[in-house]
């Protein structure tokens, strides 16, 4: 355009031309408008708050969080706290309530195949909550409780008051009955099998104190456990106290005062940190290795018969299987095991002898139970520990959770603050009292949530019961990312076509939100006041979670969202008990203070809030199962017999082919290293917990992702040999695939990984090229490839780690990442 045309243009434009098309200005003169929002805000302020990643102090300047540092008590903070600013200000934040356009037009009769294609419309909070409420009414009155599903809430944002699951459930419980879930995605198999064997879930139980292990153990076995990676995060506000003990362990290893062996196909972060020994095992074959160990212990008379006699039940029923006198007529010798697990028979014998030669602490991670037949390695681990006879001794026995929430740090014994109630207050009833589930089960094992949609009415076994899967019509997900944790994306796409209405409440555009109809923006935990336990198991204190900034854009706290929902059926006062946020915090805190009394003195709430924390003295060292060992009758386990059950009559009575009465080795539906389907898909893909996220949380933090992504994609860790064979170099874009799905990822070649093993960390956000079945995932969500089958008829938990894939160098123009912002072009160093 020339100056000439410019003049013409301007001459033609009069104010009247646009007057009708212009709205009043968004800018106000500050002198004339007292109510104008503060523009810059003044001053600088340090505040304290807690998180899964630990307690932090945050500097707030000009109304914005500008700096984060670890709380001074935390001597081993995780680098992930530096991702928090990126999480708050993530360009993937949900800024306004949204409704999927076709759903807004057609309601529950919308074209559900459009789910995932992102055509949404902004609505007001009133509109959004009205629609949400009218759907609750429609589903309860036209179907009944079997059609309403509340998704399991897992790693919600921290904070005892705002805990999002409780808000959703209390509001839903006030309205009517629903389909709930059993179990969880982390420990689904473990938490079902171990009560039969050891009398409690074990996975969520306090374990023998590290101090005791450091002092008494001659050998520590980390069995598929990676505490250095996983202890960065905690269920409540994490203290990171375990790391002090891991540092001592490292020093003892260096001085050869202890033997520590990591049994794992890969060289874990823990192994790299500790500098400990490694025992390779073929993926998914741990049970075979354990059988070989047990066979050696028994045949070489290294087992503790006295312990087995005094504290266990059913060893004699297990023995024929072990020795080849059972139906399969196969002795589980080390030679037998070697062929399956890839560990030399002689090595197996030496390992068994080492374990029996002195005090041995077995420490299991959770990954081995996130596979088909995931009950077996935990059960067999308990059998091994029982044969060693050290359960209940200091520095001996078995643990299933030393990688979790600082388990192993002694408990202070102080009470921790309670949470916002998820149930109705006493004497109250829901608006709809209908409990007619039309023959369907009111509860489904959480991992079978997709089966319920695709196989309506199917009767499945679950933990000794029959479950008739309800084809629920409406699902509500709050603070949880169903499209991260559930397996097999393409199967999920088909299943979600059958849902009439999906509501998602979250602070960021997760894939679950993209596949929802009504999307409600919650604020982050950094935009609300709360309190939390400091140390889930250690109970080291109570931490104030001071609001750093006001809720961004139109986001609200879960409390406000669900209070607004209950207002629509006149129950909001009951919902909130007529208290606001700070009144609730004072209430929860003062209850805790009262409970702790003079034993654990706490200052009054106001004083606590100003200071930001209260700490309790460290607890005393403790030994798991010591009381049981001391007196097995008085301190009987919670098993049916009260003893450790090597053979479970109860489980045997269920007659499950995939989970008989004692632990057994079973081949998997697919397996690398010579197992089923390994010719077509020779690589085992493990979807371990991520190192630089908490599941899918913080995947949207741009600065954090920039530290690990490869060409803007999730890294796929693989061995140098596998990479070489496929012409792949570190930093290349590669396609990982099997018959279930495909994803575009960045090759991270590392000698920590053996041939035949790749790792794609779970929690990577799903970002398909389109809503169609089979679409390429552009970022690298492992659950695009994993299979959605139950561990067994017993636990029906996820089997994500039973997954084989192939990898190829990606050729052609790579589609842009659709999972969130980016692509952040970061080439690996």
């Amino acid at each position, binding site marked *: *355009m*020339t*100056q000439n*045309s*410019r003049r*013409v*243009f*301007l001459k*033609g*434009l*009069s*104010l009247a*031309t*646009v*007057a*009708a*098309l*212009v*709205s009043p*200005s*968004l*800018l*106000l*003169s*500050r*002198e004339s408008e007292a109510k*104008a*929002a*503060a*523009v*810059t805000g003044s001053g600088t302020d340090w505040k304290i708050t807690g998180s899964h990643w630990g307690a932090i102090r945050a500097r707030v300047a*000009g109304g*914005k969080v500008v700096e984060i540092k670890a709380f001074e008590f935390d001597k081993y903070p995780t680098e992930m706290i530096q991702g928090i*600013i990126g999480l708050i*200000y*993530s*360009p*993937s*934040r949900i800024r*306004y309530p*949204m409704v999927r*356009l076709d759903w*807004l*037009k057609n309601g529950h009769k919308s074209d559900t195949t459009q789910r995932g294609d*992102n*055509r*949404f*419309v*902004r609505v007001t909070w009133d509109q959004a909550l009205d629609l949400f409420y009218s759907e609750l009414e429609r589903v309860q009155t036209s179907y009944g409780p079997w059609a309403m599903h509340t998704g399991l809430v897992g790693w919600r944002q921290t904070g005892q008051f705002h805990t999002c699951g409780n808000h959703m459930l209390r509001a839903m419980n006030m309205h009517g009955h629903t389909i709930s879930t059993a179990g969880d995605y982390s420990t689904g198999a473990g938490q079902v099998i171990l009560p039969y064997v050891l009398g409690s879930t074990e996975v969520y139980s306090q374990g023998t104190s590290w101090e005791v292990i450091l002092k008494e153990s001659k050998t520590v076995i980390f069995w598929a456990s990676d505490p250095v990676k996983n202890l960065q995060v905690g269920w409540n506000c994490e203290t990171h106290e375990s790391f002090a003990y891991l540092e001592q362990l490292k020093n003892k290893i260096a001085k050869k005062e202890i033997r520590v062996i990591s049994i794992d196909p890969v060289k874990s972060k823990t192994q790299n940190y500790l500098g400990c020994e490694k025992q390779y095992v073929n993926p998914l074959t741990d049970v075979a290795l354990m059988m070989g160990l047990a066979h050696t212990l028994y045949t070489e008379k290294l087992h503790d018969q006295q312990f087995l006699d005094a504290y266990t039940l059913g060893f004699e029923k297990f023995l024929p299987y072990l020795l080849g006198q059972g139906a399969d007529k196969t002795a589980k010798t080390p030679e037998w095991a070697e062929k399956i697990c890839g560990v030399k028979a002689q090595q197996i014998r030496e390992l068994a002898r080492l374990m029996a030669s002195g005090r041995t602490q077995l420490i299991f991670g959770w990954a081995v139970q996130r596979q088909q037949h995931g009950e077996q390695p935990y059960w067999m681990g308990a059998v091994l520990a029982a044969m060693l006879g050290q359960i209940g001794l200091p520095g001996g026995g078995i643990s299933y959770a030393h990688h979790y929430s600082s388990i192993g740090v002694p408990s202070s014994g102080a009470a921790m603050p309670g949470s916002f109630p998820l149930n109705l207050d006493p004497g109250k009833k829901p608006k709809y009292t209908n409990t007619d589930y039309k023959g369907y089960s009111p509860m489904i094992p959480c991992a079978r949530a997709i089966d319920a949609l695709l196989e309506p009415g199917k009767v499945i076994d679950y933990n000794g019961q029959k479950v008739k899967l309800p084809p629920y019509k409406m699902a509500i997900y709050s603070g949880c990312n169903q499209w991260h944790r559930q397996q097999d994306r393409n199967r999920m796409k088909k299943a979600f076509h059958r849902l009439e209405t999906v509501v998602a409440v979250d602070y960021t*555009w997760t894939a679950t939100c993209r596949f929802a109809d009504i999307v409600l923006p919650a604020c982050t935990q950094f935009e609300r006041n709360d309190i939390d336990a400091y140390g889930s198991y250690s109970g080291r204190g109570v931490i104030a979670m001071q609001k750093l900034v006001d809720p*961004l*854009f139109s986001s609200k706290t879960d409390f406000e969202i669900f209070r607004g929902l209950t207002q629509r059926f006149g129950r909001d006062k009951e919902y909130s008990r007529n208290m606001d946020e700070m009144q609730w915090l004072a209430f929860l805190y003062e209850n805790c203070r009262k409970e702790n009394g003079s034993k654990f003195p706490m200052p009054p709430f106001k004083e606590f809030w100003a200071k930001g924390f209260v700490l309790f003295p460290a607890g005393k060292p403790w030994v798991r199962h010591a009381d049981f060992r001391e007196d097995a009758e008085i301190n009987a386990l919670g098993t049916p017999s009260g003893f450790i059950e090597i053979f479970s009559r109860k489980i045997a009575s269920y007659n499950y082919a995939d989970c008989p009465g004692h632990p057994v080795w079973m081949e998997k539906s697919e397996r690398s290293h010579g197992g089923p389907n390994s010719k077509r898909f020779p690589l085992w893909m493990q979807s371990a917990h991520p190192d630089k996220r908490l599941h899918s949380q913080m995947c949207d933090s*741009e*600065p954090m992702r920039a530290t690990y992504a490869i060409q803007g994609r999730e890294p796929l860790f693989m061995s140098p040999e596998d990479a070489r064979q496929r012409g792949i170099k570190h930093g290349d874009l590669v396609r990982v695939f099997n018959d279930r799905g495909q994803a575009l990822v960045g090759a991270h070649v590392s000698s920590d990984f053996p041939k035949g093993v790749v790792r794609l960390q779970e929690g990577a956000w799903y*970002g398909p090229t389109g809503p169609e079945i089979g679409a390429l995932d552009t970022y690298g969500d492992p659950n695009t490839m994993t299979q959605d089958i139950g561990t067994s008829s017993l636990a029906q938990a996820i089997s994500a780690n039973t997954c084989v894939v192939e990898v190829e160098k990606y050729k052609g123009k790579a589609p842009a*990442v*659709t999972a*969130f*912002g*980016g692509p952040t072009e970061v080439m690996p160093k």
Partner: protein
Amino acid sequence: MNASTVTPEPAEAAPADQRAALYAWFATLYARELSEAQLQTWFSGAAEPLFDVLAQAGFAAEVQDMQGAINALRDLPDAQLELAADYTMCFLLDVKSSALPYASCYLGEHKTLFGPEEKAMREKLERYGLGLDSNYPEAADHLAIQLELLSWLAMTGKALDEQELVASLLRWVPEFSQKCQTIVTQVAFYPALSRMLCRLLQEESAALTDLSPQN
């Protein structure tokens, strides 16, 4: 932007109130979805005089796209919703799906919301004694707010500041506009609007540069 395409002789500035009106028009369109009433105003032909001058000024292609969009909307049963969904697709989803209308999402190291650009805008507003409408819970570097400020600067005769803000917008609006073109929309209204804004800013930059004291 590209001064070499501009004739060398100094040009007179466009009447400031006209620029102010035009920026306010853009600000209105970026601030929110069009309401049913606003859309009816458009359907009644209220935009035609503006389209005429814009078309004559060299924006014929964009005008044609916008007119085409309005005409297409006339035939749709849920015109307001469809255009609102286009607005959402273009500006309201996450950074990857949408062309987020914030400077911070294009400039700076990490491209997050509320980045340094947002802080700079808030400081700028404060300097001018301006506040944000508390009913508009947006980041200060939102395109609509920046265009409102541009309109205000034109109206209050702060030519140098106006020039500076145009230059500042041109650091990211081209990328923003480019992104808009890649988004699948029902009608071409917002992609065309963004192309038009981008070109207009470039023209203004060139014209204002000619007016600056250095020339």
